Structure formats: structure tokens, C-alpha cells
């Protein structure tokens, strides 16, 4: 993995249409982005489509990347993840019974290397998530890591969808406040 400054430099070059820089950027980031979208989509073919779209979008929008607001890898994974969520929402619901592998909480198998390299930003966010009640923590992490819908979460937590919606909203408001954004 390249260092963040190297990635920033590559994105700046990509914004000017540098194809060689784009290839290096792809090589340095593809496995991370693919891991993120595959976790949500759970289907190789869909994940491959989304990853292609994500890199086309990264190419088109490289000029909009602002290193003052986000780190390069954060910016790129966010683009890929949002495309994955778009796709899974448009495909409609898949019951969790059909997806036995989706039953585990995401953070059960974090990238062990990444855990050692956990950044201050991640510690800060996890601290804020950690202030929620244990069930709400699980709710938020399942939604984020696995891309579950309110309906899937309602099934998992045996609660009405509207209740889940309220929990999600309240939890996100609490996290925003804890992060100093409210």
C-alpha cells in the first residue's frame, strides 16, 4: 500500500488525465475497495460491476477530491461503498435467511493488519459508537459494514421496521453529537 501522500499525488495526476497514475492508483487500492463492496453485495459478479463503476467515477471526479477533507483511501472506499449500497437497495430486499453468511457482525473478522494500524480517526469513531447501548452498536455496525436495510435489521433484531428506523436515527444523532458535528 502506498502512503497517503503518494495517493494524494496520484489522484491529482489522475485529475489531469494521467492514465499511468490511474493504473498505479488502481493497483494500490483495488483490493481494499473490492473487499468493501464484496462484503455488502456478497456476489462476485455484482461486486465486479460496482468496482468498475466506482473507478470510472473516481476517474471522472478526481478533480473534486479535497485532501483537506478526507484521506485518499477514505474518499475512494466511500465512493465504492455508496455505489454498492445503491445497487443493493435497487435490487430490493434479500431475506437474511437466504444469506446465512451475513449473520455475523462485521467487526468479528476485521483485517488483523488493519487493527494494528488503527488510526486516531477510527479510534475516535469507535469510541462514539461504543457509547451507544450494545444492541445499538451492533445495529449501526451491521448497517454500515453489511449494508443491511431497515427491514433486514428489523428481522435480525425482532423489532418493527419503524422502531428500527427510530433507533437508527437516534443512534446517528448521538454519534454526530459525540463527534462534535451537531
Amino acid at each position, binding site marked *: 500500500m502506498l502512503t497517503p501522500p503518494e495517493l494524494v499525488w496520484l489522484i491529482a495526476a489522475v485529475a489531469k488525465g494521467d492514465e499511468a497514475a490511474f493504473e498505479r492508483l488502481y493497483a494500490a487500492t483495488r483490493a481494499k475497495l473490492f473487499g468493501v463492496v464484496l462484503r455488502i453485495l456478497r456476489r462476485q459478479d455484482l461486486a465486479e460491476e460496482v468496482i468498475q463503476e466506482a473507478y470510472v467515477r473516481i476517474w471522472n471526479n478526481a478533480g473534486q477530491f479535497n485532501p483537506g477533507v*478526507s484521506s485518499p483511501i477514505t474518499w475512494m472506499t*466511500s465512493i465504492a*461503498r455508496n455505489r454498492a449500497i445503491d445497487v443493493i437497495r435497487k435490487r430490493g430486499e434479500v431475506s437474511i435467511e437466504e444469506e446465512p453468511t451475513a449473520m455475523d457482525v462485521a467487526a468479528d473478522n476485521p*483485517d488483523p493488519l488493519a487493527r494494528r494500524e488503527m488510526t486516531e480517526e477510527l479510534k475516535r469513531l469507535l469510541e462514539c459508537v461504543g457509547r451507544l447501548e450494545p444492541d445499538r452498536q451492533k445495529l449501526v455496525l451491521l448497517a454500515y459494514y453489511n449494508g443491511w436495510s*431497515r427491514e433486514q435489521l428489523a428481522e435480525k433484531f425482532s423489532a418493527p421496521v419503524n422502531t428500527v428506523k427510530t433507533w*437508527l436515527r437516534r443512534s446517528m444523532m448521538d454519534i454526530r453529537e459525540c463527534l462534535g458535528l451537531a
Partner: protein
Amino acid sequence: MAYSEDHIALAAEYVLGTLDATERAQAEVMMAADADFKALVEVLDQKFAVLNQMVGSVEPRDEIWEKIRAAFGLAGAQQPLVLPCDSSAPVAPEAPTVAAAEKSADASNVVALSQETRRWRSVARVASALAAALLVLFGIQLAQPDWLPESLRPKPRVKIVQVQAPAAPSHAQYVAALRKDGGGPAFILTVDASTWDFTVRKIDAPPEQGKSYELWLISDKLGAPRSLGVVGESDFTARPVLASYDPGIVKDATYAVTVEPQGGAPNGKPTSAPVYTGKLIETVPAPSR
């Protein structure tokens, strides 16, 4: 700008990913039209995106890079976008693979005229479905005058036209997100119903070498698509053209963007199939205002 708790919750749940498809589309249109709302989403999005540090990496197959490369050869170019005819299908159609797109690009040289016509008709149906999905929650940001001057600032070479910063509108404002099937908004079209001036803001469309984007009005009542001129040469285009059409037609029409030879379609008729399409929806003030 101060946002209601509903707006903040929409932004937060967009980041978390728990909005349904319609709500996500609403949030995306709001982001495209309102820089402050976009910033609200992005700040939280970047805070959460660090969670992905914990997700394990998975190598994609080598072919993926080749497909991405191929997509650039085509990116936004004139390959016809074959739109699905059945717009009522609840499940989004699979995006055509790049290979398929290449094939259809080749085939387009011999495409039959009737097929072209059919495609234009199907565009109207698809666009209706999209507009229905986009209902109105996000109204007032689009009417906020403050995004107009801001979007003008970075690009002094705006081609046309008097832009009047709209006063806080007491009249109807219409907005359409023009998008490729399944994609985010590429252009945002806004129409001021007091003057029928329209503005087109380029959001996410790749630059076209030696080609021009042209905007069309499509209505059953008019027959052939009517050109509303070349758009997207700068980030922002404003023009008084719609006043000559019946308001009912303007409101119900489908708006489509095609890729044409530089300067626009030579005979006032589109030479390619629409790439981005959308329908107008009326925007209303958010309940908290």
C-alpha cells in the same frame, strides 16, 4: 444553512446506508443541487468511512482492470444507451457489461431506424418512472439563490445569458435530475415557472472531446424531440427557451441529453440515443421552513 432534524437524519442515514432506493435518490438530488447539504453528508461520510479500515482486502480478478480500461475508451461516448423497455420492473436491470456496450456500439452503425424510434419512446417511460420515484421532499434547497452565484464563480466563460438570481420564489420551481439508468444525476435542470427560464447545471458528466451535449424536450404532443440547445460546456448554462412552449407540455415532458457533433445536432434532430434523461418535479418548501 440551518437544516431541520429531518434533513440531518436523511443525511445521516444516507451515510449509514439504511435509506431505501427512493430516499437515496432524494438525498442524491439534494446533494447535487445544494452544496451545503452535500457538505453535511460528506463530513459525516468521511468520519464513518474510516470503519472500512477494518474490512479485509480481497483481490479482484485481473480482467476487471481491462474492463475499466475499456470503459474509458467508451466513457460517455456515443455508444447508444439501450434503455430497458419495462420501466415498471422493481428490480434494477443489470448494468450492461462493458463488452456488451462495445458490441452495441458496433451494431449502432447499422441500427434500424425503427429501433431508434422505439428507444426514444422507451426513454419517456423510463423517465416517468424515475420522476415518480423522486417525489418532493427536497424542495427548497433548489430554489435557494445562494447556489447560483457560487456555481457561476469558478467558470467565467459561461456561454450564455443573463442569470437573474431568483428572489425567494413565491411561484413554482421545477427540477429534474437527468441521469443514466441507475446512475447518479449527471445534469440538474431547474425551471422557473414565473419566466420559464431554465438552468442546467453539469454535475457528473465526463467531458466530451470534439462532441457536445445537447438537451432535448420530448413530448407526445410535439412528436419529434425539440432541441433546447447545447449544454454542459461550462458547469452552468441558463437559457430562456421554454417560454415558447405550452406550460403543460413543459411540465410533463421528458428531458434528455444526447451526445452530438460539436456545436449540436446539425439538422435539429438528435443523431444519437439519449444518454441522460429525467422529468420535472415540482419542488415545495421543506416542512420546517
